[in-house]
């Protein structure tokens, strides 16, 4: 039996592979972090902040689609509830420090997420998408008719204020590093969730829900918790966006926004941590470039075309493709 394989060897190679993958991910992350730190010297900070806010939104959304396998078509509701809450509080109570407004916005979105989850969890698959879409439309009507949102006009001139009463956020560079810190915190939280035993159960639910049930997992509870985290982070993204742009509008609540975050995630790569970030950067940048050129009126149609092409021949997204390529060529 000279050519038999020792199980311990296999285990060792697997560990080695995991280690090298970890090391590679660490290097990629450090390079990206360095880039993000020096980025405002090279590009307009407000534009970068827009990308970071949408990246956080997409990362939050991906916790559902990418890691739990549930398509929410209502995430605009969380973005908007965070945005409106923060906007309303900061405009009404002028002494309120900014981080409290943001925390409040995040909490409201989290609670709303719990409400959505308790209702939508009762159906699966495409029904889940339809129910979340309908619920977010309900929220949209609520925002249209409520007086505190400013109706069609939205909230304008939201003061950026000070962080902890110390750092002046009206300075774009201060604001940028604040947004970056919040984005990284959100990103690391999702990374932590996905890597935890809890995240493994989510993946199991995504791959084979009946089996996860038969293994004794309370599948619904897992899904609800994931949805609530996702909604809270989406709300956080909305709150940040309000502070950055000093406005909150109905655009954030429109179903169009829910579609946009799906596109960002899908295009960047569902089920990868970095995918939604890349997708958000791509879509925000594309929309900006298009709005400057002769194709300004065609943004929607072009987004539609990208949607169709991604679904037809690019389902693993940009980051997914890169990962495949790396696996094939680097091992």
């Amino acid at each position, binding site marked *: 039996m000279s050519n038999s394989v020792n199980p311990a060897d296999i285990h060792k190679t697997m560990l080695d592979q995991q280690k090298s993958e970890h090391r590679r991910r660490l290097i990629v992350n450090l390079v990206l972090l360095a880039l993000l730190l020096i980025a405002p010297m090279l590009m307009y900070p407000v534009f970068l902040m827009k990308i970071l806010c949408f990246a956080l939104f997409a990362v939050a959304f991906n916790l559902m689609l990418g890691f739990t396998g549930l398509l929410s078509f209502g995430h605009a509701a969380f973005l908007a509830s965070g945005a409106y809450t923060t906007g309303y509080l900061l405009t009404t109570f002028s002494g309120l420090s900014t981080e409290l407004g943001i925390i409040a916005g995040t909490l409201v979105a989290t609670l709303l997420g719990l409400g959505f989850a308790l209702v939508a969890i009762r*159906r699966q*698959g495409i029904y889940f998408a339809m129910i979340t879409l*309908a619920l977010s439309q*309900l929220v949209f009507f609520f925002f249209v008719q409520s007086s505190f949102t400013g109706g069609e006009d939205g909230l304008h001139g939201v003061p950026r204020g000070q962080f902890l009463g110390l750092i002046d956020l009206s300075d774009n560079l201060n604001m940028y590093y604040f947004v970056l810190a919040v984005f990284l915190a959100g990103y690391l939280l999702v990374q932590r969730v996905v890597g935890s035993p809890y995240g493994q159960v989510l993946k199991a639910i995504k791959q084979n829900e009946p089996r996860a049930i038969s293994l004794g997992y309370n599948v619904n509870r897992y899904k609800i918790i994931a949805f609530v985290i996702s909604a809270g982070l989406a709300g956080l993204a909305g709150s940040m966006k309000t502070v950055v742009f000093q406005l909150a509008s109905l655009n954030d609540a429109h179903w169009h926004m829910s579609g946009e975050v799906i596109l960002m995630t899908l295009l960047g790569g569902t089920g990868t941590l970095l995918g939604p970030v890349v997708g958000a950067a791509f879509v925000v940048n594309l929309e900006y470039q298009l709005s400057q050129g002769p194709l300004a009126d065609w943004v929607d*149609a072009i987004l*539609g075309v990208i949607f169709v092409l991604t679904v037809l021949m690019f389902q693993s997204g940009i980051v997914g493709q890169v990962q495949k390529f790396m696996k094939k060529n680097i091992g």
Partner: protein
Amino acid sequence: MSMILGVPVAVLFGQLLLGLINGAFYALLSLGLAVIFGLLKIINFAHGALYMLGAMATVILFDTLGISYWAALFVAPILVGCVGIAIEYFLLRKIAGQDHIYSLLLTFGVALIIQGVLTNMYGVSGLRYSMPDVFKGGMNLGFMFLPYYRAWVIVIALLVCFGTWFMIEKTKLGAYLRAGTEDSQLMQGFGINVPLLVSLTYGFGVMLAAFAGALAAPIYSVTPVMGSHILIVVFAVVVIGGMGSISGAIITGILMGVVEGLTKTFYPPASSAVIFLVMVVVLLVRPSGLFGKEA
């Protein structure tokens, strides 16, 4: 004037009539969704855009070629139905068998394209379409005024719904369709051309949407965005009714239109939200929907 619960009778019936009409559109649209879902197991997110395309086609055919309302009732659905078959053949078929989430996203992308292109061509302000002279005016029923066109919409929509139900439940073609819903592989084994059946089914569902669009052209404002809101409402209707049965889709559609009309009479601010609220209640009490079969 006589009153019911503090509301004049004429107002109440007027809103009920409007509700019935909206309900007729909900019924036609959710019926189309249910037919498509039955065989393809997908939710057609482009349904609202195709409904809009039916309405736009009716107006454009009249403006450019002078095609009358009556002809448009046939021509518009056939044209849009062909668009539907093209969508199925060139796009949906390529990802058949994959997770249904992808087909949903694909149709969503298609909806964005259709809506985006038409918005560029015609703007969002809306096209004008005048109804045929036959339908001008109405009759006084004593307790309310009934415009002819609105009566016509209700009657013809119900006829089309009933015809569809009859075809699916009582004819040989419908039997194929129902068999395909149960087990399309087995049916393929019996020598039935399932891919063709799938194309035709999708095309037919789309035709129903376009027919609703053509009916809507004279009474609703015809704009490239007219389909997106009604689609979300119809999704809620579908969740309420459950996708299980054809007749369920029709009944729920009309019922929800009436509920909306009644809400508009007694508590107007909630009228645009009431269907979604009903959906929430139904999901909490009976998750599979009023007519749904699966849990």
